[in-house]
């Protein structure tokens, strides 16, 4: 979905989002309240400039509009794979973005991510995945890698991976699998404006994704292992 169509559906109350070099920023009216919007479009690879632009927009929101909720619109093919980005420390730019989101959360901003098109590994980890809650549209693509590439790396035949992926959401791409594992809080099927208002209302700053993954049967070990380490006990199977 293109971002203008998305914005029209998300913000019937109006918005002033602008796009510059695939970077989205602005604000919108949600349920009578102003919400800051930042994001990317055009499946743009996240390089150092666009990571910094997003971080700058978040800190500006923290400074100028204390407490204003922040919506991160995610559409990226992943981190930019260039020598220059690595030379200049793209991991530091990504970490900076993640830390800005974290600071906003701690200062009382509700931060929500929405994958409206593509989300891939590096571009996703410091945007949607560091938000307090992340959602996706049903037709979104979310993945680290596709099954053919995974077959090459793991040397497990693709047919076998496809078979395993039917029951185990850990292997295959897709929002349904991320939902089952707790990586997504929900998938927005229709009435996006209403879904957004509700998500903002019920968002908690706690990271409950391990518990969600266990409740939904998609990530059975993360929560018991973390609990066992934390409490000094044994891992209790579900």
């Amino acid at each position: 979905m293109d971002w203008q169509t998305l914005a029209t559906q998300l913000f019937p109350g109006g918005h002033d989002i602008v796009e510059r070099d695939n970077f989205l920023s602005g604000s919108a009216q949600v349920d009578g309240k102003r919400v800051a919007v930042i994001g990317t479009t055009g499946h743009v690879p996240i390089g150092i400039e666009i990571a910094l632009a997003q971080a700058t927009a978040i800190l500006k929101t923290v400074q100028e509009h204390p407490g204003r909720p922040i919506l991160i619109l995610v559409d990226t093919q992943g981190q930019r794979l260039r020598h220059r980005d690595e030379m200049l420390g793209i991991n530091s730019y990504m970490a900076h973005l993640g830390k800005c989101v974290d600071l906003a959360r701690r200062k009382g901003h509700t931060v929500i991510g929405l994958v409206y098109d593509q989300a891939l590994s590096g571009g996703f980890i410091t945007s949607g995945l560091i938000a307090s809650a992340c959602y996706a549209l049903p037709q979104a693509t979310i993945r680290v890698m596709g099954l053919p590439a995974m077959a090459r790396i793991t040397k497990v035949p693709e047919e076998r991976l496809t078979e395993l992926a039917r029951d185990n959401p850990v292997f295959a791409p897709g929002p349904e699998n991320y939902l089952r594992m707790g990586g997504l809080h929900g998938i927005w099927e229709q009435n996006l404006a209403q879904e957004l208002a509700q998500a903002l209302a019920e968002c908690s700053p706690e990271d409950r994704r391990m518990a969600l993954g266990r409740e939904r049967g998609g990530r059975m070990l993360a929560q018991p292992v973390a609990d066992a380490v934390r409490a000094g006990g044994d891992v209790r199977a579900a």
Partner: protein
Amino acid sequence: MSSYLELTARQRIPAMFDAGSFEEFLPPSARVASPHLAELDSPVSFDDGVVVGRGLLGGHTVFGAAQEGAFMGGAVGEVHGAKLAGMLRRAIDERAHAVLLLLESGGVRLHEANAGLIAVSEVMRAMLDVRAAGIPVVAVVGGANGCFGGMGIAARCANTVIMSEEGRLAMSGPEVIETANGVEEFDSRDRALVWRTTGGKHRYLMGDCQLLVADDTAAFRAAALDAIADLVQGEVGLTLEGLLAEQDMLARRLQDADGASEPMELWRRLGVSDPAGVPMLEADAFLALAARHRAGLQPAASGTGER
């Protein structure tokens, strides 16, 4: 000198912590391995490639972890990530003096990619929770496999990164970039270029790592002790001022690097008169040179970015 790089994760723990003080949580005897690797008929490890626990460092209770590069490159799967997150949460529960992370990782474990990706983000959030609780987090990068992918990002969520020259810190590995964009973009077999781009000296000069030491376990331990002693004096949680300073540093770096495509050119712009000689310098000589030329030295005395 005894090399840190050549040690396994299980050897690094006693080399870094006070002798005999480390207690491991969920040790290999608990036999918690990755169910996903087993499903793929891949070898598993009973610690899933990471040691987590609590020990003494200079007499203080410090929580810690060590990733094992020899097991799947130290990559993060569901269990591995949950052990790290659980340890970080316990460090808050027990009001640890500090957390010390001995990182060596290729990032997300591709065999369980979706779980690994979510897990790394959980580790990042847990690290920032530790800092918000007033507990410093120190990351050490000095293993043969470097620190890449999501863990390269996580390292920069620590208060302090300690590296050796041999350590490598980045996001995408050279092989990944070469595969995606060709050998002209990044020749992964050009080892000198790989080190100039991702190695400890470059990261230290640019301000992405705060302490650089020789590849020596005693030097790493001393640096960890210094870093923690320094950090406990001040604010370790994220602050708006700290992040604005980091944003300035990162924005200035982009301006200063305009048109440059080779790390040596960046060093030259920092005022290093013989950039080609930098890779040959021993740690002490390099530090003496870096003291005059490191990026981010200009504004505040401790202007090494967000700490």
